[in-house]
């Protein structure tokens, strides 16, 4: 008697091999059989007409805080993600002395845009060491977690405030090595560091003060465990990215460790950026290094309001001049009929329809709820105004605090990005799940992979796409028990409709502690998600299953 049989689906087993009609049987949280399975089960899931695949693995998230009250890392799990890697970009919630909590909370608020209530009302802060944090999240996991430990918090633990002032002494570096060993023993799957992030005071985060010798010493410890080093490099700066690739390659070869940098973006402003970086990665792999560039699937959007000056208007000289004025003068100018007339004249005969019509009104601020998600073109039509005037008046009516989104302004050309995502040395990831909460949604990149790059563009087969976000990710990260539908491995399974799997539109929701807002995207086309053999999501709803584990 099996616990579960997922019957009659197209089994895409994560290896990249062609899908086949078959069943997947589960017992004791593991995959027990794959193929034509006879026998009975306590629960049978009908997967006819659906794909049955290994659960997806998201290798770049910031769910560290959210996992303390939401063990499903919603909405990641409903998108078919069964394992997340938090602790990226040098920040984790352990090891962290009680006295240093305030400093790290500030960094998390800066980078993740997490409301302050998340740290004061949503959980009891009981731990200082990594084992304690692990125990705190393990109480309620519905999703699996493969946590990184952050270089910045390791530095802070050892050096205190000096972590953001100076290089470490040899004694301090040795103490960091010991602390990293302790974290790896307690379940960390690697170390993250950052070369770009700032804290809430605009100061570089502690990891950026490290000399090369310090990172080398920590990489040596990773080498003892064969674990991952993750870095976040400078963006759109190809020469720097290549320098970072070379630094990582040297560490990889010297200490025999995998390394990854995220994100790598494509941009038409620097058209050879990703291409040159990938070429360097190829050269370094040929030398024996492992330097995995993480590339996200989703395009990057620009959002802005008239509350703050934005470079979005950089091609409109008069608009730039007006919006750069102090608030009271800006308001007066925007209300002045003569000035408005000139501003509208700058937009051309269509009144700004071509330039602004596709902007989307966003919620989560002063924007009237009824307008959230509508295009400025629709709003303008309803108001009987040209788009440019609607932009100004709607903003004025709401204290300028109406955010607009200009979708797909970077990393947006499918024909360029598809072949890169399919490249054997490009690691699909960099979702940033759980971060940038008040700016944009970081969920549903896997759905977008299938809808945009498999179905629409044909950049890769369904089987290849599944392999990219399951077995290949597990192999890169050394997650030996995950990523394939293979007897003996963990029964992380997603059942989805290949014809419809996608991400829904971005919407504001108020489900953060203290009714805090974040942007999310629901899943489309995902029927059922099993985590370690238990159904965690089915028919559009989360179950009570708490079968997630810290996996290594």
């Amino acid at each position, binding site marked *: 008697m099996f616990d579960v049989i997922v019957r009659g689906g197209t089994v895409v087993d994560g290896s990249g091999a062609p899908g086949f009609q078959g069943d997947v049987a589960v017992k004791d949280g593991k995959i027990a059989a794959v193929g034509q399975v006879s026998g009975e089960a306590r629960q049978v899931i009908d997967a006819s007409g659906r794909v049955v695949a290994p659960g997806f693995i998201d290798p770049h998230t910031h769910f560290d805080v959210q996992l303390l009250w939401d063990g499903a890392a919603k909405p990641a799990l409903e998108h078919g993600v069964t394992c997340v890697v938090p602790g990226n970009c040098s920040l984790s919630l352990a090891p962290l002395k009680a006295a240093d909590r305030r400093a790290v909370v500030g960094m998390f608020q800066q980078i993740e845009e997490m409301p302050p209530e998340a740290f004061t009302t949503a959980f009891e802060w009981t731990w200082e060491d990594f084992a304690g944090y692990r125990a705190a999240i393990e109480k309620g996991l519905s999703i699996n977690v493969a946590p990184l430990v952050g270089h910045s918090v390791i530095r802070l633990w050892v050096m205190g405030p000096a972590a953001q002032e100076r290089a470490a002494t040899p004694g301090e570096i040795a103490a960091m090595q010991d602390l990293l060993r302790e974290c790896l023993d307690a379940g960390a799957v690697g170390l993250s560091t950052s070369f770009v992030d700032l804290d809430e005071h605009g100061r570089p985060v502690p990891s950026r003060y490290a000399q090369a010798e310090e990172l080398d010493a920590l990489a040596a410890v990773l080498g003892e465990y064969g674990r991952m080093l993750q870095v976040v490099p400078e963006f759109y*700066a190809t020469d720097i990215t290549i320098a970072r690739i070379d630094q990582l390659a040297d560490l990889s070869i010297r200490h025999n460790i995998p390394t990854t940098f995220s994100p790598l973006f494509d*941009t038409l402003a*620097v058209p050879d950026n990703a291409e040159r970086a990938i070429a360097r990665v190829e050269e370094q792999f040929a030398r024996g290094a492992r330097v995995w560039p993480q590339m996200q699937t989703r395009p*990057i959007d*620009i959002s802005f309001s008239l509350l703050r000056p934005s470079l979005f208007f*950089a091609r*409109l000289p008069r608009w*730039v001049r007006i919006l750069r004025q102090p608030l009271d003068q800006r308001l007066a100018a925007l209300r002045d009929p003569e000035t408005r007339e000139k501003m509208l004249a700058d937009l051309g005969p269509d009144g700004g329809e071509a330039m602004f019509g596709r902007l989307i009104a966003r919620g989560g601020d002063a924007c009237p709820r009824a307008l959230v998600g509508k295009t400025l073109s629709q709003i303008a039509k309803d108001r009987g105004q040209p788009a440019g005037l609607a932009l100004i008046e709607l903003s004025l009516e709401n204290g300028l605090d109406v955010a607009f989104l200009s979708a797909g*302004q970077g990393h947006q050309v499918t024909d360029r990005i598809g072949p890169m995502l399919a490249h054997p040395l490009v690691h699909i990831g960099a979702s940033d799940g759980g971060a*940038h909460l008040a700016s944009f949604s970081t969920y549903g990149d896997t759905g977008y992979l299938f809808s945009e790059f498999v179905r629409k563009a044909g950049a890769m087969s369904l089987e290849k796409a599944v392999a990219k976000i399951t077995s290949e990710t597990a192999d890169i990260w050394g997650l030996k028990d995950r990523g394939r539908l293979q007897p003996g491995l963990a029964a992380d399974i997603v059942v989805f409709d290949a014809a419809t799997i996608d991400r829904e539109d971005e919407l504001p929701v108020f489900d953060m502690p203290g009714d805090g807002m974040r942007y999310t995207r629901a899943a489309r086309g995902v029927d059922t998600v099993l985590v370690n053999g238990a159904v965690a999501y089915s028919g559009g709803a989360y179950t009570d299953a708490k079968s997630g584990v810290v996996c290594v």
Partner: protein
Amino acid sequence: MPESALDEAVIVGAEIVAGHDGTAELVVRLLHPDGSEHPVLLDEDTGLKLMEACGASSLEDLYGQSWRRIVPDA
């Protein structure tokens, strides 16, 4: 590589890009005296300050400006 007639690096291109955090950022292209070029990404604040320092009201106004305009204390 052809030498240019420049004494110092100047801006020869400017374009708005979508920043990693959803803001509009500025990529400027610098031409160096030895004829080489490279892009520099400026965050929104730095980009706006550059436009202000140059008295620029459009991206094209940045063309020909010295790299020193980008660095506050240079």
